[in-house]
């Protein structure tokens, strides 16, 4: 009864099991075992149990180990009849008789293919991941190496930059993002007459306590983040051009560089030059006036009556040449005076419409001689008063009109118009002629000192090339602008825009 029960159970059991005698011969297997290994009952009974996992290097070791212990569990590879190799977990259970002698053992086989596959995948994954990590690690190492290199390079760059800044001939004061002095170079130390250690880390307000730095900081604050240039006089009579340059990265403010460029020498050279020209011009005027007066007396009714007509003609021509020379020197004097700052600007409110009327009237005679029409167009609203140095503004329009007349052909028209602009904040004067115009290629040089367009030189050999240079200087000193449009052969139109009321102080300081 019991035996049957055991037989049934044995057959039914889904786990492959077998019973092996102490010398490892298989005595009995269940159905599941046959199915699993692919052998028939006849083939398997009596065979050496370990042939099932033959080739497994641990075969003989297992054999011995098995008999030493009651329980046993080990993962091994089973070879089926079809020579498939299946990973299994082998369970063994020794059987002993009542005397304790081993009479055999059970073996149970658990297929762990799935488990192995899974763990194999896992292993693969782990390996893969490990490899990734390895790669990452080496990449990271590379990066670190690169970073180190970059750091060294950056440090080198920074040292270089520092060296450049320190030894830069211009004074440099660098502010950090919180507007504190971060760096000051040697040139700036000299210009400010301070030691770097005394100003480093100081805020703008603290820097202002140094009288030599105050104007610079004020200029920087007034620039409100924009770039600005201005001439400043420093300690010891040095003249510098200061520039404030904010360091902006996108929206972020990273500080600013304040640069001081020493132009003392240039100023001195300029001064000597203008002084020389001024002196030379004065020295030239004396003999020129003597010549002028002598010829004038000779040509006078009384003085010149004994001269022949040819002699009188020579003298008239000499007189005219002399006049030309005088004009040139007057222009030269005006320019140098303008440059050496002696051109006294006396801005007062004056009538620009009346001034234009006067200038136009005084040129009507010349217009008639040249058979040109000279018109003036004034706005109905008047008088128009603007803040100006009338004497200098007159010079501007005299020059523009003289040019227009000189370069306009017979029968041409010159129109001078006055407009109120920008909500009566500005006036614009337009001087338009129908003359020869200015060649395209030479237009940008028109306001340069001594420049004369090639076509102008052919028609009028007398011009000094200083008129428009003067005009531009005067207009700009008033805070105005001057420009023109022209096409060669089709006349030129000059525009002068002047503010009705400009901050007086500002343009007084310019001169």
């Amino acid at each position, binding site marked *: 009864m019991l035996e049957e029960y055991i037989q049934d159970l044995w057959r039914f059991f889904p786990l492959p099991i077998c019973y092996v005698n102490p010398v490892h011969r298989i005595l009995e297997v269940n159905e599941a075992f046959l199915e699993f290994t692919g052998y028939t009952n006849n083939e398997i009974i009596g065979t050496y149990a370990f042939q099932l996992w033959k080739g497994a290097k641990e075969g003989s070791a297992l054999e011995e180990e098995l008999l030493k212990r009651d329980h046993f569990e080990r993962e091994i590879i089973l070879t089926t009849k079809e020579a498939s190799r299946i990973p299994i977990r082998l369970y063994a259970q020794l059987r002993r008789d009542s005397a304790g002698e081993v009479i055999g053992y059970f073996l149970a086989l658990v297929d762990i293919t799935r488990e192995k596959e899974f763990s194999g995948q896992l292993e693969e994954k782990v390996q893969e991941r490990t490899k990734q990590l390895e790669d990452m690690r080496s990449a990271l190492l590379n990066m670190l190496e690169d970073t180190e290199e970059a750091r060294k390079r950056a440090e080198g760059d920074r040292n270089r930059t520092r060296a450049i800044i320190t030894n830069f001939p211009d004074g440099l004061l660098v502010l950090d993002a919180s507007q504190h002095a971060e760096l000051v170079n040697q040139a700036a130390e000299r210009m400010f007459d301070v030691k770097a250690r005394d100003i480093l880390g100081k805020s703008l307000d603290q820097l202002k306590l140094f009288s030599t730095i105050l104007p610079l900081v004020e200029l920087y604050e007034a620039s409100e983040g924009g770039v600005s240039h201005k001439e400043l006089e420093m300690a010891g009579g040095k003249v510098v051009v200061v520039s404030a340059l904010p360091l902006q990265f996108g929206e972020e403010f990273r500080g600013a560089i304040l640069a001081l460029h020493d132009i003392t020498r240039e100023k001195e050279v300029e001064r000597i030059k203008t002084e020389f020209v001024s002196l030379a011009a*004065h020295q030239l*005027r*004396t003999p*020129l*006036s*003597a010549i*002028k*007066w*002598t010829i*004038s*007396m000779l040509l*006078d009714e*009384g003085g010149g009556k004994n001269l022949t007509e040819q002699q009188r003609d020579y003298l008239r021509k000499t007189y005219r040449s002399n006049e030309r020379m*005088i004009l040139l*020197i*007057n222009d030269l*004097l005006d320019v140098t*005076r303008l440059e050496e700052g*002696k*051109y*006294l600007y*006396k801005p007062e409110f004056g009538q620009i419409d009346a001034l234009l009327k006067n200038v136009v009237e005084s040129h009507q005679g010349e217009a008639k001689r040249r058979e040109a029409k000279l018109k003036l167009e004034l706005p109905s609203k008047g008088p128009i008063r603007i803040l100006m140095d009338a004497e200098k503004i007159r010079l501007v329009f005299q020059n523009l009109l003289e040019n227009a007349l000189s370069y306009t052909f017979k029968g041409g028209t010159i129109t001078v118009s006055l407009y109120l602009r920008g909500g009566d904040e500005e006036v614009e004067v337009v001087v338009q002629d129908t003359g020869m115009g200015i060649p395209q290629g030479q237009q940008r040089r028109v306001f340069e000192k001594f420049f004369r367009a090639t076509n102008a030189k052919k028609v009028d050999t007398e011009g000094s090339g200083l008129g428009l240079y003067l005009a531009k200087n005067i207009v700009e000193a008033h805070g105005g602008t001057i420009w023109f449009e022209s096409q060669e052969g089709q006349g030129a139109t000059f525009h002068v825009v002047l503010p009705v009321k400009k901050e007086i102080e500002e343009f007084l300081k310019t001169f």
Partner: protein
Amino acid sequence: MKRVLLIEDEELISALLAKKLSEGGYDVTVAGDGEEGIVKAKMQNPDIVLLDMMLPRMNGLEVLQEMRDDADLRDTPVIIISNSGQPVEIEAVRKLGAKDWLVKTNFDPGEVLEKVRSYIG
């Protein structure tokens, strides 16, 4: 006859102008430097003085200043004839009461004569 004192160091200029003014009916005295000019002005008490600015010994501005300090010469009209013409200088002599400033290169002797006539007839 109205008296004109011409203080001018350039001999050619003064000779030409003196001739022109004489022809125009004036009694002309010439001084070649500032000091001489002051002496002659005090001696003769002229109706008008034509004064150069750049002069040896005393310059035009000093001559003018001294004339203004002299009761007899304080109201004598003075016309500056100069080769210079800087606004600062013009401003300075105007404050000292000079009537006019003529830049020599911009005027003929005839025009100077007319100016003189316009002030003293």
